[in-house]
C-alpha cells in the first residue's frame, strides 16, 4: 500500500504507514483549524471502538491530538487487512452522530498557592494580572485531554486562555513535586509523579492521577474533559495533599 491513503471518498481521514507493525490514523483533515472538542469526541469514540473492531491483533492504541497510532501483531494481521476493516466499519466509526459514548467530565481540586505553585506570582506578573485573576482564568474553563505521554499518566490539557500563554522555563527544574499543576505555552497539566520539569507551577492537585495497580490506571483518558476547582489549604490537606 502507499505510505498514506484516504480511508474512503466520503471520509478524509488518512491511513498512514508508520512501521511494519504500526499504522497511524491521521484525523487532521477533519480539523483544519486544529484539534478541538469535536475531534476529541471522535478520538474518544475511536479509542473505545477500535479495540472491539480489531480484537487481539491490536497490541497498542495511542490516541494523541489529531491521530490514533495502532500497533498490531504481524502474525495476526497486516496493513492491508486493517485498512479493509477500517474501511468496512467507516460508516459507524467516523459518523459523529453515532458517538453515543461522550467523554467523562472530571473535576480536579487544585490548591493554588505560593507554597505549591512557586511560579504563581511570576506568571501573574508576566501577564500583568493579579494572582487571583490568574487562578480565576485557569479554573474558569474546561480542558480537553489531548494526549497522555512524556511520563506515565502525564496528560496534556488544553487549551488555556490566550492571556495565560507562557513559555517553558529556560532551565527545567531538577525536581517538580508530584501533583504539581502547571502551564506551558497554551497547555496545562498535572505532574503525576515527582520528576524534572520545565513547566510553570501554579498549584497542586491532591488527587492520585496515575496508579499502576488500578484499572484503569488513570481517572481520565484522551478525549475526556477536565476542570480545575480551586480549594483552600485545609481542604487540600483533607484530600490527602502533601506540602
Amino acid at each position, binding site marked *: *500500500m502507499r*505510505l*498514506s491513503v484516504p480511508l474512503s471518498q466520503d471520509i478524509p481521514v*488518512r491511513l*498512514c*504507514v*508508520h*512501521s*511494519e*507493525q*504500526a499504522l*497511524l490514523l*491521521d484525523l*487532521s483533515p477533519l480539523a483544519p483549524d*486544529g*484539534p478541538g472538542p469535536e475531534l476529541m469526541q471522535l478520538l474518544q469514540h475511536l*479509542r473505545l471502538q477500535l479495540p472491539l473492531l480489531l480484537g487481539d491483533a491490536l*497490541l*497498542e*492504541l*495511542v*490516541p*494523541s*491530538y*489529531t*491521530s*490514533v*497510532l495502532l*500497533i498490531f*501483531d*504481524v*502474525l495476526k494481521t*497486516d*496493513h*492491508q487487512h486493517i485498512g479493509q476493516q477500517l474501511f468496512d466499519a467507516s460508516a459507524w466509526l467516523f459518523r459523529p452522530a453515532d458517538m453515543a459514548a461522550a467523554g467523562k467530565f472530571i473535576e480536579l481540586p487544585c490548591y493554588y498557592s505560593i507554597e505549591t505553585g512557586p511560579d504563581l506570582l511570576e506568571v501573574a506578573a508576566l501577564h500583568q494580572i493579579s494572582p487571583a485573576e490568574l487562578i480565576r482564568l485557569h479554573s474558569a474553563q474546561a480542558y480537553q485531554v489531548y*494526549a*497522555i*505521554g*512524556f*511520563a*506515565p*499518566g*502525564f496528560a*496534556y490539557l488544553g487549551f488555556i486562555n490566550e492571556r495565560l500563554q507562557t513559555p517553558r522555563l529556560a532551565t527545567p527544574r531538577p525536581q517538580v513535586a508530584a501533583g504539581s499543576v502547571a502551564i506551558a505555552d497554551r497547555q496545562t497539566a498535572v505532574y503525576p*509523579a515527582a520528576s524534572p520539569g520545565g513547566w510553570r507551577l501554579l498549584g497542586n492537585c491532591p488527587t492520585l492521577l*496515575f496508579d*499502576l495497580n488500578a484499572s*484503569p*490506571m*488513570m481517572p481520565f*483518558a*484522551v478525549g475526556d474533559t477536565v476542570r480545575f476547582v480551586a480549594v483552600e489549604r485545609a481542604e487540600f490537606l483533607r484530600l490527602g495533599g502533601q506540602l
Partner: protein
Amino acid sequence: MTQRLPASTSGLWVLQSHSSVQLQDAGRFGGAAAGLTQGGAVDLTAARLANALVGNHNSVTGPCPPVLEITLGNAAFRAEQPLLLAVTGAAMPLLLNRQPVARYRTLLLQAGDLLEIGYSRAGARAYLAVAGGFEAPLICGSVATVLREKVGGPDGQGSAVTVGSLLPCQPWRQADPQLSLPYHQHYHHHSIRALALVGGAQLDTLDPQLIRLLPQRLFRVTARSDRMGMLLGGEPLPVRAQSLYSEGICLGAMQLPPNGLPIVMLNDHQTIGGYPKTGALSRGACEQIGQLMTGNLVRFYWLDAATAVLQERQRLLALQLQLDHLAAQWVQAGDSTEIRQMGN
C-alpha cells in the same frame, strides 16, 4: 485469608553490576495510552534462546520468562544454590570460577560458584537466563525494567540489578543436560550494518531529497545511545522546520530532530512525540541496531511495508523453529536421563 509464601531465598547473588544490568522480558503492553512504554529485551531473540536453552519453554507468540539483560558487560554473580544457566547475545568473556566457559550452552553452577562477565568484545547486549526464570513482581503483566518510569525490575520500582542483592530463582536439582546451540545460530556481530527502513507517511512532508539522500549516508552509533533510542552521528540530513502535533511513536521509529541526525527509538522509547519521522525499522532490525556498539556504522535502505511484514513473519518462524528444536532436545534429555523428573 491465605498468607503469602515468603520470597524465595535461593538465587543468584550480585557481586558486580551497573545500571544497564536489568531484568527484562518480552515487554509491557496495553499501557501506552497511559504513557507506559513497552520496555523488554532489546534483543528478544537472544533472550528467548537463552530461556529455551535452560528449558524455559517459550514461543514467539507468548511471554518471555524474565532474564538479565547485560549491556556492555562487567557483571559478576555467585550462586547461592545449584543453578542451571545460559548466556546468549553479545560476545562477552564468560568465566566460571575463573575458567573460560562458552556462551549459548547450559552451565551448571554449584552453590558458591562464581560467574564473571567481562567487557563485550562484539555486540552490546548479552542475556542470562536461569532454569525456572528469575522471580520478580509483574507490573501490568511484565517484569520489564524501565528506569525512567520507575517500573519493573527486581523490586517492581524500576531499579536495575544492584550489587549485593539476591535475584530469587529456583535451585536446580538435576544434572547438566548439556544443551547448546551450534555456532551458526549464535549472535554474530557486524560492526557495519545495512538495515531496512520502512518509509513512513511523513516522508511526504519532509524534504523530497531525503528519499535519495538517506540510503547514501553512513551513520555512526554515538555514545549517547541507550535503551530509549540509538542516537546516530554523521553528516546531518536536511530537515524542514515544521510544527507537528505530538503523535504516537512505535518501536523502531526513526525521528529526525532539527539537527538532522536520526534517532531510532528502542524499547524504552517515549510513547508520543512531535519530531518528524522518516519511517521505522522493523522489530528484527531493532534487535540488530540495538546490538551495535559506540562507533559502529549503519546504513539504511528503503523497504515497503508489505515486504517488511513478510520478512518479519519469516524471521519469527525461523526463531520458532530454533525454540522448537531446543524444546525437543529437552524432551529427549528428559527421556534418557530423567532430567526433567520433578521432585514431587
